[in-house]
């Protein structure tokens, strides 16, 4: 169970996260929505310890992880994929996933084995298979398609065997068809494991169809939370979020 | 370390004053060279590891002009302008090609230019030391004695000239349109391009300005020291130190740091003659550890 209690963070004058509280049920699939700059990525950064919060507390199960380093929090079972793909360009898919597995197990400190012959190579095959990367298993990361790079980013997170998986816009930069393919894959992954999954997504269709619970973030605050149905009918959300969306459409 | 010698000097007005003036002179000449280095880094984002040869060329050009014209002021000016033109060719011909390259490539390009220019200088002017171009006639007078300190008027002239140039440079950077363009280019070159301003022009004019200043430093230094192709080495190293201590890209920081290094050199020569260089690097290490952006460097 991931719990946030009154988490706040500001950058200079901008309050990026304002008094956010959340309780994510174990094994649930959740979505965070909100316009650009709402503070969604910042929230992920706070949970994973990449940046430190100014106030509030964060717990995994009963453990207070507030103020722990990104490194420690990763080892406590929180993994993430990034909005802007964050991979290792010169590594093949196989090498990337193997390296991630070794990183998690402190295996990268080993000087006496050979990386290429490491048993973790076998395990990486499984992760590639469940993320659908088996066909590009030996391709170098920077030569992969955009979609496959996003998948690889997720595969790296999966190698952490996380309890909580945070996906920052897994469908960013994709066409509609590709988006659905991606999100179905994510949903499959979630079903096969008992992870708690949180994803950030702009496509409302996807969000309402896939998520069990939705958080609407607006200017750093939680504007609304609840089941897809309750969010759809929430007047605040319709005013602020959909209103904001419309304005944006007009201006572009 | 000779602490006693240092204390003796600090408590004797004569020694104190003459070392201070000496430090000021070193510091101001250093500022001429280092301000260009820091300016180039701030705007072009590259470290000109070949900055020392600009200083050295300034000295040679001035020497050559002195041979031909016999006029001190004119020779110094020719030296500085000559190096400015050399800088233009250097930037357009070579540096331009490695803006996007990694640090290693940039370092090696500069290393190559140092090797080549050193040899060319040797081919043209020979590998013997050339004698200094001498002090202009009006300064060929007995030194001043202030509190028993021996102070050559020419040193004061160098200090004031450099100070004047520092002020001009400061005005150029803060009060002119060119200055605001340069500062904008340092912060956000893409924005300038979007506004239809030729950033290429800004880049090479900054490089030329930096070269001119280094050449001027070399030409002025040539008035009193003998000229040799390796003369740029130590000033290059000192300019790095100044750039780092002052904050990379900061002219004001370079000014302060130049004074610090000038004084460290001058008084260090009394206190620990064999370790003055080490002392300067120690200051640099401390600044990098405690405040990597330097005294006046801006956060990225």
């Amino acid at each position, binding site marked *: 169970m991931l719990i946030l209690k009154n988490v706040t963070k500001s950058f200079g004058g901008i309050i990026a996260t304002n008094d956010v509280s959340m309780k994510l049920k174990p094994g649930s699939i959740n979505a965070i929505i909100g316009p650009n700059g709402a503070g969604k990525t910042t929230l992920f950064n706070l949970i*994973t310890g*990449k940046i430190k919060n100014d106030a509030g507390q964060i717990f995994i199960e009963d453990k207070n992880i507030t103020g722990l380093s990104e*490194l420690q929090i990763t080892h406590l079972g929180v993994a*993430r994929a*990034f909005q802007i793909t*964050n991979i*290792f360009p*010169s*590594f093949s898919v196989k090498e990337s996933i193997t*390296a*991630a597995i*070794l*990183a*998690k197990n402190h295996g*990268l*400190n*080993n*000087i*006496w084995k*050979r*990386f290429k*012959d490491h048993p973790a190579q076998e395990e990486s095959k499984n992760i590639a298979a469940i993320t659908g990367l088996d066909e590009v298993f030996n391709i170098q990361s920077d030569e992969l398609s955009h979609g496959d790079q996003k998948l690889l980013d997720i595969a*790296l997170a999966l190698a*952490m065997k996380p309890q909580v998986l945070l996906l920052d816009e897994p469908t960013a930069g994709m066409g509609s068809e590709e988006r659905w393919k991606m999100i179905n894959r994510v949903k499959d992954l979630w079903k096969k494991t008992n992870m708690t999954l949180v994803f950030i997504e702009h496509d409302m269709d996807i969000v309402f169809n896939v998520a069990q619970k939705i958080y609407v973030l607006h200017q750093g605050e939680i504007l609304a939370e609840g089941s897809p149905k309750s969010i759809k009918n929430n007047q605040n959300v319709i005013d602020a979020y959909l209103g904001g969306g419309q304005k944006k459409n007009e201006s572009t | 370390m000779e602490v006693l010698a240092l204390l003796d000097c600090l408590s004797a007005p004569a020694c104190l004053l003459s070392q201070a003036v000496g430090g000021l002179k070193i510091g101001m000449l250093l500022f001429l060279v280092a301000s260009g280095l820091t300016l180039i880094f701030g705007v072009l984002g590259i*470290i000109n590891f070949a900055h020392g040869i600009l200083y050295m060329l300034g000295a040679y050009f001035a020497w050559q002009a002195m041979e031909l014209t016999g006029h001190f002021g004119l020779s110094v000016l020719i030296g500085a302008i000559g190096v400015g033109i050399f800088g233009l060719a250097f930037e357009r011909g*070579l540096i331009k*090609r*490695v803006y996007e390259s990694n*640090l290693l*490539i940039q*370092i*090696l*390009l500069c*290393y*190559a230019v*140092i*090797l*080549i220019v*050193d*040899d*060319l200088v*040797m*081919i043209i002017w020979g590998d013997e030391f050339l004698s200094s171009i001498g002090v202009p006639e009006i300064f060929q007078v007995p030194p001043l004695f202030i509190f028993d300190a021996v102070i050559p008027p020419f040193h004061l002239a160098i200090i004031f000239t450099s100070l004047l140039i520092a002020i001009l440079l400061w005005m150029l950077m803060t009060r002119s349109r060119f200055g605001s363009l340069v500062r904008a280019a340092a912060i956000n070159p893409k924005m300038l391009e979007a506004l239809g301003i030729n950033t290429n022009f800004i880049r090479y004019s900054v490089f030329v300005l930096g070269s001119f200043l280094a050449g001027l430093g070399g030409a002025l230094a040539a008035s009193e020291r003998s000229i040799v192709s390796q003369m740029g080495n130590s000033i290059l*190293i000192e300019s*790095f*130190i100044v750039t*780092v201590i002052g904050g990379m890209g900061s002219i004001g920081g370079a000014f302060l740091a130049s004074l610090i290094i000038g004084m460290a050199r001058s008084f260090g020569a009394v206190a*620990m003659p*064999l*370790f*003055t*260089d*080490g*002392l300067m*690097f*120690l200051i640099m*290490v401390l600044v*990098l*550890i405690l405040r*990597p952006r330097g005294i006046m460097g801006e956060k990225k």
Partner: protein
Amino acid sequence: MNVSIKDSFKKDAIYSVVSWIALLSLYFIFNDHGIQDIITKVAILGLFAMSLNILIGYLGLIAFGHATFFAAGAYTLGLFLQSDFIIEYNIGSWSIPIALSLSVLLPGILATIVGVICIRLREIYFSFLTLAFQMIFYSLILALVGITGGDQGLMGGFPKPPFLGIDLGIHFHFYAFTTFIVILAVFLMRQIIESPFGYGLRMIRDNHERPAALGFNIRSHQLLAFIIAGSLAGLAGSLQALLDVGAYPEWAFWSKSAEPLFMILLGGMQTFLGPLLGALIFELLNDFVSANTRYYGLILGLVILIFVLGFKKGLLDWIVIRGRKN
């Protein structure tokens, strides 16, 4: 495909032994002190450049003060062999092995101190800090005249007592011993680079932000790499000191750090043996140019320009990439 752990290790071991035998045969084929000495020098410089390439090519850190450790190794060896310690404790025939071990150990300790401070900074700031430490070290060598001989270097030579039947005073023994040590070090480096640790280095080079989110502590990794690179540079320096029977302050000057950078550029940084090839080209260029013209810098500078602006990568990298494409 399924090569066992022992096999790839064994393969490299066999390559190493074969290379050594090949080098020994070259000694007799060429039977010329000039050429034989070039091979020794290339081996030493190659080790120096390869140790630096751990940082540059694999870790992605442009260390600009690597000669610090080279010089530290050289002075450690020289000072130890000159010390009264050897006579006092009657170390005699063990003095060379002990000296060499110390020349790995002390630079390693120095690298630990310098590394802890330097790896906190990135990019140009890292480079500057390594340069600053190097120049402090250089100034210390010049200042501590009583110990180091100041700008004259470590004078007066030192004894090289035979050990285990190896007499480094004999030309062939020296050649065989140096090449053996270098190949051993290269073999070790190969193991390190191909180990999970080595891939950790590549991860940091490729992306220094992501590792933390994979639970990978890059600081300790970087530090260990810095120490390994420093120790091996120390070993190279000590071999150079054995060769020249002395040690000189210029070995700690910044231009000595530029040399291996140049070798890496010449040979290639993405290929394991690239820097070694670079050292060979560098040494041949050196020999050829200084034998034929006074304008050594001019030629060397032009060659660097060709590589920097033309190839943009080292020779071996270039060959390997061409090979992959065809």
